[in-house]
């Protein structure tokens, strides 16, 4: 049983990290492209990029919390 819980905790955070990495990579690439196209808008782009990164990361933080809860049960 503890083995399953351990596997579950690892899978939870693993898949969540994968998904959020994809999403955040997209955000960063589009933001960098925009900044390269129009350097005057760099400040505004940077602010909004940080915001979007935080939102996407929060989804993988939910999975992290679940992983902590599971790891506490081992």
């Amino acid at each position, binding site marked *: 049983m503890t083995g399953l819980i351990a596997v579950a905790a690892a899978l939870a955070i693993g898949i969540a990290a994968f998904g959020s990495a994809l999403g955040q990579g997209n955000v960063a690439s589009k933001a960098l492209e925009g900044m390269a196209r129009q350097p005057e808008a760099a400040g505004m782009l940077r602010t909004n990029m940080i915001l979007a990164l935080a939102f996407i990361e929060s989804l993988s933080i939910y999975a992290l*919390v679940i992983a*902590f*809860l599971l790891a*506490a*049960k081992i």
Partner: protein
Amino acid sequence: MVEALGISLKEFIFYLINFAILVGVLAKFLYKPFLAILDERRQKIQDALDSAEAANRRADEKMDAYTRRIANVESEGREIIREAKSKADAEARAILDDAGDRASKMITDAREEIERDKERAREDMKGEIRDLALLAASRILEQEVAADGRQDEIVEQILKEQSEGKWNN
């Protein structure tokens, strides 16, 4: 899961009260006075800008009025000068005309006087010549007429011939 997360009602209520107290204190002592000061400052700056703009507008209006008045004064002055010049010209012309008239009158007077003098001189000369002619003629004729008695006739004829202009000098 509740223990794993660490949820505890006491802690929750403590944090709730803590946050509420913080919001209350900050709202009363930080946000209210500072927002009021920000508003007051913005109002002051707006008032200063408005009054500066009004003062500018008043200054512009005054400047316009002054320039207009100066332009008026200049044109008035020019009018006065023109009038004076024309009046002076008219007067000068009048004086000249007057002088011209008087000069010509003097000339005609002088001519008339000359004519009169000439007439008088002619009359005088006529008398003298008559006397001389009579004297000469009488001397010449003394020997002839004394016997004839025709001297008045000859004198008349001589005078007639003279006045007809046979004797021109």
